[in-house]
C-alpha cells in the first residue's frame, strides 16, 4: 500500500509535461549561464564561478521547483476534487501524506541535482574536477525535503497555497538571507548554503546579493544539517497530525 502511494506520486511528478520545463531550464538557462559566467565575473577561478552559478540559479530554482511540485502532494487533489478517492480508502491519512511527500521531495531533489550537474558541466566543461558538486547535491536534497515540508504545511493550512509558496520562494528566500543581523537565520536557503559551504563572492556586493550571501552566515555544516533535519521532522509531524485531524474538502464544497 505504501509502495503504491509512493510510486504513484513519483510517476505523477515525473510526467513528461511536469519535468520538461525544469530540464529545459537546467539545460538552457543554467548550462548557458555556466558556460559564459566568466563574462559576468572576469578573472574568477572555476570554484567561484560554479559557486555563483549554483547559488544564483540552482538553489533558487530548487525553491521554485519545490513550490510548484509540492502542490501535487495535496492541493492539486483538493482542487481537482480527486482527494475524495484517497480519503475514503483504508489508508491512514498520515501515510498518504508522508509517502506522497517523500516521493515529491525525491523528485525535486533529483531535478535540482540535474541543474547542479548542468552548472558544473558548464563551468568545468565536464563532470570532473568540481569538489563542490557532491556537497551541493547533499544540500539540494536536504533543501528539497525542507522546502517540501514547509510548502506541504502551507498547502494544508491555506487555500490557493501556490501563491504563498511562490512568494516565499522568490521573495522571502531572496530577500531575507541578505538582511542585516540575524534575520538570515529565518531563511531555509541560509542553512542550505551552510551545508554547501560555497566560497565567498569577494567584494562584489551585487553578486553577493544575487547569491543571497549579503547577510551574516557563520553557520557550520553540521549546524546546517541538524537545523534542517529538526525543521523537516517538526513540520512533517505537524502536517501529518493536521491532515489526520481536520476535514479536507474541495474548496467550493466546504463553503
Amino acid at each position, binding site marked *: 500500500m505504501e509502495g503504491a502511494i509512493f510510486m504513484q506520486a513519483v510517476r505523477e511528478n515525473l510526467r513528461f509535461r511536469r519535468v520538461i520545463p525544469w530540464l529545459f531550464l537546467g539545460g538552457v538557462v543554467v548550462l548557458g549561464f555556466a558556460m559564459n559566467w566568466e563574462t559576468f565575473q572576469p578573472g574568477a577561478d572555476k570554484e567561484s564561478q560554479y559557486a555563483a552559478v549554483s547559488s544564483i540559479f540552482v538553489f533558487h530554482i530548487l525553491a521554485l521547483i519545490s513550490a510548484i511540485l509540492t502542490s501535487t502532494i495535496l492541493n492539486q487533489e483538493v482542487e481537482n476534487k480527486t482527494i475524495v478517492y484517497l480519503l475514503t480508502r*483504508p489508508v491512514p491519512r498520515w501515510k498518504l501524506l508522508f509517502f506522497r511527500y517523500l516521493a515529491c521531495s525525491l523528485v525535486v531533489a533529483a531535478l535540482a541535482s540535474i541543474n547542479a550537474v548542468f552548472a558544473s558541466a558548464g563551468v568545468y566543461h565536464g563532470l570532473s574536477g568540481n569538489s563542490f558538486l557532491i556537497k551541493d547535491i547533499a544540500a539540494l536534497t536536504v533543501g528539497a525535503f525542507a522546502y517540501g515540508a514547509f510548502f506541504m504545511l502551507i498547502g494544508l493550512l491555506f487555500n490557493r497555497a501556490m501563491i504563498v509558496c511562490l512568494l516565499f520562494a522568490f521573495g522571502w528566500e531572496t530577500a531575507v538571507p541578505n538582511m542585516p543581523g540575524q534575520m538570515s537565520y529565518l531563511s531555509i536557503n541560509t542553512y542550505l548554503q551552510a551545508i554547501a559551504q560555497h566560497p565567498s563572492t569577494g567584494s562584489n556586493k551585487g553578486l553577493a546579493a544575487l547569491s543571497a550571501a549579503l547577510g551574516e552566515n557563520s553557520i557550520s555544516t553540521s549546524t546546517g544539517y541538524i537545523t534542517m533535519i529538526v525543521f523537516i521532522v517538526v513540520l512533517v509531524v505537524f502536517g501529518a497530525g493536521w491532515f*489526520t485531524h481536520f476535514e479536507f474538502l474541495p474548496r467550493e464544497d466546504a463553503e
Partner: protein
Amino acid sequence: MITATNVSRWYGQVIGVNDINCEIGPGITALLGMNGAGKTTLIRLITGQLRPTTGDLRVFGLEPFANPDVYRRMGYCPEIDNFYEHYTGRDFVRYLARLDGMSASVGNARTDEVIDMVGMSERANRKIAGYSKGMRQRIKLAQAMLHNPDLILLDEPLNGLDPVGRREFMDLLGGLADQGKAILVSSHILFEVEQMTRSLLLLHRGRLLATGDLGVIRSLIDTHPHQIRIETDEPRRAAALLAELPNIVSMKFDRSGDAVQLEVREPAAFYDALAAAVLEKGLTIRGFSSPDNNLESVFKYLVEA
C-alpha cells in the same frame, strides 16, 4: 450498519443536515431529496469526510471520520465527475485497489473482475479524459466495489447512464443487495429510485422528512388530489365520459382547447376506470401527464401533512 443519532452539520451559518435520526441496514435504501436537501452532506458524514457538528454517527459501530477500519468495509461512489484524466480506467481502478491494501497481482485480478462487472472491459484501456459520462459512472462504480465492501454508498449514481446502463446498474445493485450488502443510493428523482427499492429516507432542507416504505409515502401522497392532464382531439366528449368516472374532484378545459385538466383522489382507481373508458367507449387520448407526480409535490404534500 449505519446509526445516526441527532446528527447535525453546519457550514458556518448554513445548515447542511439538521437533527438526523435513522438506522440503515442491509438491502437497498434510497436517500431522496431535491438538490440542496443535504443528501451529499449526509453521505460525506457517513463516509467520514466530514464530522458531525453535533450528534453521533456510527458506521459498523465506529466513528467513520478518517477511520481505515470503516473504509475497509465501505465502498463509495461519489457524485463528482473528477478523475485523474490522464489515467486509463483500468489504471485508475488498479491504483485504488492497491490503496485498498491488495497486492499487485490480487489488485490486477480484482480490477479486471469489477471492470467486467460494470461492462467496461473493452473500454478500460482508454484514457479517462475521453470517456462519456456513462463510462465515468461505471468506472466510479467499479472502484466502489473493488474490495467487496459490506456497505456501498452511491451519490447520484444514475446520472449520465443510458436506459440500458440504468437497467444493468439496477440489476447489479439488486444482486449485491441479495448478497446481504447495505446499499445507500442518493437521488433527486423519485421515479429512478422507485425502480430500485421500496425503502426510502426523504430529506428536505436538511431535515429527515420521512423514512420507511415507499408505499406508506405513496399512500400519504394519494390522500391529496392528483392533477392529471389528458390531451385529446375531442375534449368535450372526453369531459362527459370522464365526469362519470370515480374520484373526480374537479375538471376544466385547458386553454389550448385540446386537453382536459382533472383533479382526482385515489389516482390508482381512477387510472383503472380510465383504461376501461378508453377501451369500451373508444375515447381517443393523445397524451397523458401528471404534473404533480414528482418529488417537489411529494415534499409539498408531506410538509402540508
